[in-house]
């Protein structure tokens, strides 16, 4: 029976979709059978980040409305045989998603997968509440920046009150994934520190993903960063985060500032 994970943030542009793709791929690389579900009705992008945009025939709403059967809508990744995608619809009718419909889709996916990763749309509207509704665990993607932390706090409140688990009196396990972390700015005290973010959100840390060109390059070519450049620092950070999700204890590495050769020769240290 699959574990349902929602990747959520409140704020847009923090890296939910790239993180869903990277974590989904890393879980599949670790031998787990994974389906990533795009809940962003009207603005689907997970297919693009995974390089499956030209293979979409049916989507989540087609399945919810009974136009297509679930196996017809699932797209198997060409590189990772354990990774599947259930794409979002391009339709602008946000009401096409119903709680009852999503409930049926999740129930049908559960026996066939180890992990169901729900990529939430930004905001706190219907799409975001539906994406988190059936979650067992949540990954809150946060940038070390005031508006992102504020929105994450809001989403944490919703995870504790508006999910099926919360309504049953159980707890949705929560993890914070800090993305777009810039070590140089953090060192200069111009960016909220990891400790600040964790203290404010009072939620355990899953990983720290550095701001990196590798993530953008991976999206450009439609390949999750853990596949596209597995040796890069964001890929390693995502792989470590995935191992923590799987219950392993992995030492947390805070991305360090790269000190240039000249500075090293001159004996300057990063502040």
């Amino acid at each position: 029976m699959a574990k349902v994970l929602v990747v959520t943030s409140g704020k847009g542009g923090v890296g939910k979709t790239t993180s869903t793709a990277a974590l989904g791929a890393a879980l599949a690389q670790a031998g787990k059978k994974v389906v990533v579900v795009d809940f962003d009705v009207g603005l689907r992008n997970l297919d693009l980040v995974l390089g499956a945009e030209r293979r979409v025939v049916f989507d989540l709403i087609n399945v919810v409305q009974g136009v297509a059967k679930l196996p017809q809508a699932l797209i198997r990744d060409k590189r990772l045989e354990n990774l599947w995608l259930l794409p979002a619809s391009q339709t602008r009718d946000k009401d096409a998603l119903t709680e009852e419909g999503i409930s049926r889709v999740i129930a049908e996916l559960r026996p066939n997968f180890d992990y169901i990763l729900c990529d939430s749309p930004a905001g706190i509207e219907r799409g975001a509440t539906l994406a988190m509704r059936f979650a067992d665990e949540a990954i809150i993607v946060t940038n070390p920046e005031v508006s992102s932390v504020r929105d994450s706090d809001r989403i944490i409140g919703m995870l504790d009150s508006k999910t099926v688990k919360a309504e049953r009196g159980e707890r949705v396990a929560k993890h914070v994934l800090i993305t777009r972390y810039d070590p140089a700015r953090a060192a200069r005290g111009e960016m909220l520190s990891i400790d600040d973010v964790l203290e404010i959100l009072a939620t355990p840390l899953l990983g720290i993903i550095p701001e990196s060109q590798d993530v953008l390059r991976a999206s450009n070519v439609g390949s999750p960063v853990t596949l596209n450049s597995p040796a890069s620092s964001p890929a390693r950070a995502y792989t470590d985060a995935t191992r923590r999700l799987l219950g392993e204890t992995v030492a947390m590495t805070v991305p360090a500032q790269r000190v240039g050769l000249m500075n090293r020769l001159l004996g300057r240290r990063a502040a």
Partner: protein
Amino acid sequence: MKLLRFFSGRPASASVARERLQILLAHERGLLGQPDLVLRLREEILAAVSRHVALDPDKVIVRLDRGEHVSTLEVDIEVPNAPALAAAG
């Protein structure tokens, strides 16, 4: 860097961000079900201390740290030295 900041007398923006966030979120979360408790506490503390000491309202910092089981309320008030006190008296 820290030395530079010490001499310029300006806090790094990250610490400003942190304090603003804490005040805002304490307000939004509604500690113990009272949505504006921190703000009300700050105003009342300010009023109480102001009756005896001339205070710069900006020098009163009320900080709430939320923990898993216990939250701490930290009140930090900068009180001016003797000449200002005499003027206030």
